[in-house]
């Protein structure tokens, strides 16, 4: 799909007036200064300026904006909180950035139906808190939950720290209200856990990165809040040992809520920020946790602690109370930004391999980093085989960026060789696009593009992302 051709500043006065008529003049931003903050997201090394930023307040306004954009061939990049790590919300082709943060209400939490309905821009934390107030759990738990929007989570199929036992965003999306690029308002799925009428468009739209439709409302499934939760920490000499401990935990028959690991560099960066008294000398930290009935949690934690000891953990401790467990999880969530303390540029990746190959992948990353002379810190959702190798560098250091890119190229190809993928939860966006064909193959990529055309005949919606 070729992008609609616009050059910066090409939105005419008539189009801008129409936009102002739809959402109100204060919600159409066009000056250089006003659009600048929307020219980037949380992805390093990507920036592009939109011609206008539009902030709608209702689904009808979204519909009118999209119909107008299709009529005039204006690219539209939907945006939530802009916390994505794949440059998915960078307006590479200019045009309109459509920001949904004004639509941020939690509309309903139903204990009887175990579901919640939220507007696109409600934050993940707001949804979780609203659910918790009813004694319910919204399980997906992405690291950026206090910032990220629910529709953004759906658009990227966000993962998080509970993936192993609870799955990811896609496992909880029951229904969507979306607006097609041509302006039609659709409702896919609904309030039902069972519904097989027609293609599963809800799942197709989940993870579509704003290339097929704009999500305006989300209905998610909830679970009863577990009665108890517990967390423990094990230290190892090497990250690969932590990977082996993960394999043993699963093999021993435990499917815990959380299995996260950090290497030595991450431990130190996190400790610099959170000051929890982590062992700065350890080669790796494995954070394990489970929830459920108090008995189940106690047994599960004991089995996991035993498994870690059997693999040769230097030390295993259980969090004394909920506050300590929460502090550990909060610290883990901030691993990425904490690593930013090490150098000005922090490039993070998201490869995922089958769990049994985790230790192998970890060793490969070490070798690749050494070969390319880059500083790499690795953390990740070990239980999901989902790794976040992070290369930090100073752009003053000559060809550091090229070395980082070469190293990641090799990391991606290695992951695919181990039957893994180039991205587990962050998405393709613009950042991972160069490797998508290698991952999907030409036939699948061609099908993906035909699907894109069916949804978006004018090719205006986030053009070029996700291989579209």
């Amino acid at each position, binding site marked *: 799909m070729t992008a609609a051709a616009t050059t910066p500043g090409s939105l005419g006065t008539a189009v801008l007036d129409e936009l102002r008529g739809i959402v109100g003049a204060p919600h159409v*931003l066009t*000056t*250089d*200064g*006003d659009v*600048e*903050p*929307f*020219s*980037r*997201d*949380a992805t*390093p*090394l*990507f*920036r*592009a300026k939109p011609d206008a930023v539009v*902030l709608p307040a209702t689904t009808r306004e979204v519909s009118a904006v999209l119909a107008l954009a299709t009529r005039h061939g204006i690219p539209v990049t939907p945006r939530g*909180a*802009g*916390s994505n790590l794949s*440059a998915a919300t*960078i307006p*590479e082709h200019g045009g309109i950035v459509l*920001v949904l*943060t*004004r639509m*941020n209400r939690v509309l309903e939490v139903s204990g009887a139906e175990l579901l919640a309905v939220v507007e696109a*821009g409600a*934050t993940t*934390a707001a949804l979780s808190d609203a659910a918790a107030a009813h004694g319910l759990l919204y399980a997906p738990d992405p690291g*950026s939950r*206090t*910032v990220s929007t629910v529709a953004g989570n759906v658009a990227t199929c966000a993962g998080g720290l509970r993936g192993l036992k609870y799955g990811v965003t896609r496992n909880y999306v029951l229904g969507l209200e979306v607006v097609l690029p041509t302006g039609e308002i659709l409702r896919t799925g609904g309030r039902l856990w069972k519904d097989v009428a027609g293609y599963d468009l809800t799942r197709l739209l989940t993870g579509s990165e704003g290339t097929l439709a704009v999500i305006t409302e989300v209905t998610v499934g909830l679970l009863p809040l577990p009665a108890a939760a517990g967390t423990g920490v094990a230290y190892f000499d090497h990250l690969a040992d932590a990977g082996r401990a993960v394999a043993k935990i699963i093999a021993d028959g435990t499917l815990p809520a959380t299995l996260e690991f950090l290497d030595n560099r991450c431990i130190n960066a*996190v400790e*610099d*920020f*959170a000051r929890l008294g982590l062992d700065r000398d350890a080669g790796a930290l494995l954070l394990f946790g489970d929830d459920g009935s108090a008995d189940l949690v106690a047994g599960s934690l004991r089995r996991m602690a035993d498994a870690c000891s059997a693999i040769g953990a230097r030390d295993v401790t259980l969090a004394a109370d909920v506050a300590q467990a929460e502090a550990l999880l909060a610290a883990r969530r*901030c*691993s*990425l*930004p*904490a690593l*930013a*303390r090490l150098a*000005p*540029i*922090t490039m993070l990746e998201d490869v995922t391999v089958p769990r049994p190959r985790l230790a192998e992948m970890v060793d490969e990353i070490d070798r690749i980093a050494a070969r390319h002379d880059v500083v790499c810190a690795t953390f990740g959702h070990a239980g999901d085989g989902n790794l976040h190798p992070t290369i930090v560098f*100073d*752009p*003053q250091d000559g060809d550091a*960026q090229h070395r980082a890119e070469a190293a990641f190229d090799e990391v991606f190809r290695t992951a695919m060789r181990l039957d893994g993928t180039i991205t587990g939860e962050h998405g393709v966006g*613009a950042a991972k696009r160069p490797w998508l064909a290698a991952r999907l193959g030409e036939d699948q990529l061609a099908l993906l593009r035909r699907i894109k055309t069916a949804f978006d005949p004018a090719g205006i919606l986030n053009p070029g992302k996700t291989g579209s």
Partner: protein
Amino acid sequence: MTPADDQAAAAAPAEAPATTRGIFDKKLLAACISCGFCLPACPTYRLTQDERSSPRGRITLMRALETGRLEEDDPTLQEQASFCLGCRACEPVCPAGVQYGSLLEQWRDHQWRGRHVPPLALALRAGMRVTPAFGVAGRLRGAARPTGPAAPIEPDGVRAHLMLGCAERALYPQVSRSVLALLPGVVDVPSGQGCCGAMHAHNGGSEQSRELAEELGRRLPGVILTTAGGCGGHLAHVLGRDRVRELSEFLLEYWGERPDRMPALRRLTVEGSDGSADGRPLRVGLQDSCHLRNGMGVFAQPRELIGRVAEYVELPSAGSCCGSAGTYSLLRPDDSQRVLDVHLDEIEAAGLDHLVVVNVVCQRQLIAGLRRRRSTTTVLHLAELLARAAT
């Protein structure tokens, strides 16, 4: 795609042609990775849900200014430099350790030069230099009397010099008297105190603010005791954290070390119409001082002290800016009021007897706000509450 990133540009060597303008400290500006973890902590983002008025959005604007993509007369730059409360709530939540407060000062230094200075900010900057005027006003209204030149710091004598604070000595002179009542013989009040310069630092006058703080540091050698988080945060930044103690941390440290010098603190209860106590403990909330909490890391201490003399009630937004923000309530009264309203609603809903403050401008802001609403909750400085319990 534009991989030529500001993050890279901001960290590029100074001699690199036309990439940076030297407005900001390169290292500080490069530290942000735009993760957005600061957004929910920012009071102006919470009001607007608008990226432009978030810490991350403002840093993106600063980078555009630094690399010359935006000029300082850009209206968005002007507006956002001014709309920011400067509360620094984004700092403790930033895992990357971005020093936003310093960046904001550098931004305003540049942004508010010459004709770009908000006239009121300029007037305030000039006015605060004329400290004798404030001093006289304070003496007329009964602030603690200066005790002469600073006494030497001794283990069994004066441990710290009480700093009076320009606004506090004029508006709330009872605060410094309460401190002396709590710490007899432990602090002195050196005469000839000037302004600490905090106000200048937050209004585009960093250089002047540093000179003022250093001058005050010379006049009050040794440990400076402050009752205002705004002054304390600035002095600690310039003179070093070990030179400055805020009242609550000083009291806990000193009384912990010398329990014999701690006055008996009674539990404060509601008084009946005949003056007799009816037994119900007073319900007391706290408004944190932003620079005390986010700049000096002091927030547990005032809570502990209140809990010793009353029933402490944690307000949901206790740690969030009340909108006074130094001179903000004068420069941007409408926005200041919008920020304050959230706090006033919570205070009224909580049914407090007193709201305790630990900073002078918060005191002024909350007294005025609660008075407008005819609230029965009264505002006290922490020193005043404790002095009542000590009598």
